[in-house]
């Protein structure tokens, strides 16, 4: 005692890597270009 550690088999892990490729398009050029970013933010 204590018993020694033993390796046990398990199902392999698969992760959804394709999900990481799903992303929003860039909307930078679809928004108003405002130079006074801080002030205008208050009015939204």
């Amino acid at each position, binding site marked *: 005692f204590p018993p020694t550690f033993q390796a046990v088999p398990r199902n*392999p892990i698969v*992760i959804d*890597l394709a999900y990481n490729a*799903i992303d929003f398009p860039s909307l930078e050029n*679809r*928004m108003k270009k405002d130079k006074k970013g801080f002030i205008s933010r208050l009015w939204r």
Partner: protein
Amino acid sequence: MAPKAKEKARPAAAAPAVAIEDLFASLNRHIERSEFDQAVKISDQVLSIAPGDEDAIRCKVVALIKNDSVDKALLAIEACSNKSSIDFVFFKAYCLYRQNKLDEALETLKGQEKNSAMMLLESQILFRLGLMDASVDIYQNLQKSKIESLEINFVASLVSAGRASDVQGAMESL
């Protein structure tokens, strides 16, 4: 690619163009905050003013997928497939994969020129179908692509294909 709605709207009237810019700003904010329900709503608002706006449709589909509403995402893709030529092959195949409609998903990807995202998806579909060797082949082709965590799925496919002895060599080559 369809012309952006912004350009279309501007000659007609200045007001809707401004409104669209505000809507996109709001949409962008919701996306940054991961408020995907709201992002869908704003995308719909943009689409009510500018039907067929590519950015808005893409945002709507991605927001629905990220909100785990793959059924609705598929409906949105189907709805616009008659009206526009936006390429939704990857998203469509991904939604079908999530619905476990694996044969349909594979069929959607067939004959397409595949980027790494489509290859990852195809490999995951093949894995679920139990076609382990085919799944392994794709990961082997992606080895040089520096995809994060690729080794996890690669090893899983090798082990499930009964090729555990290849794991060490595969890890060293990554």
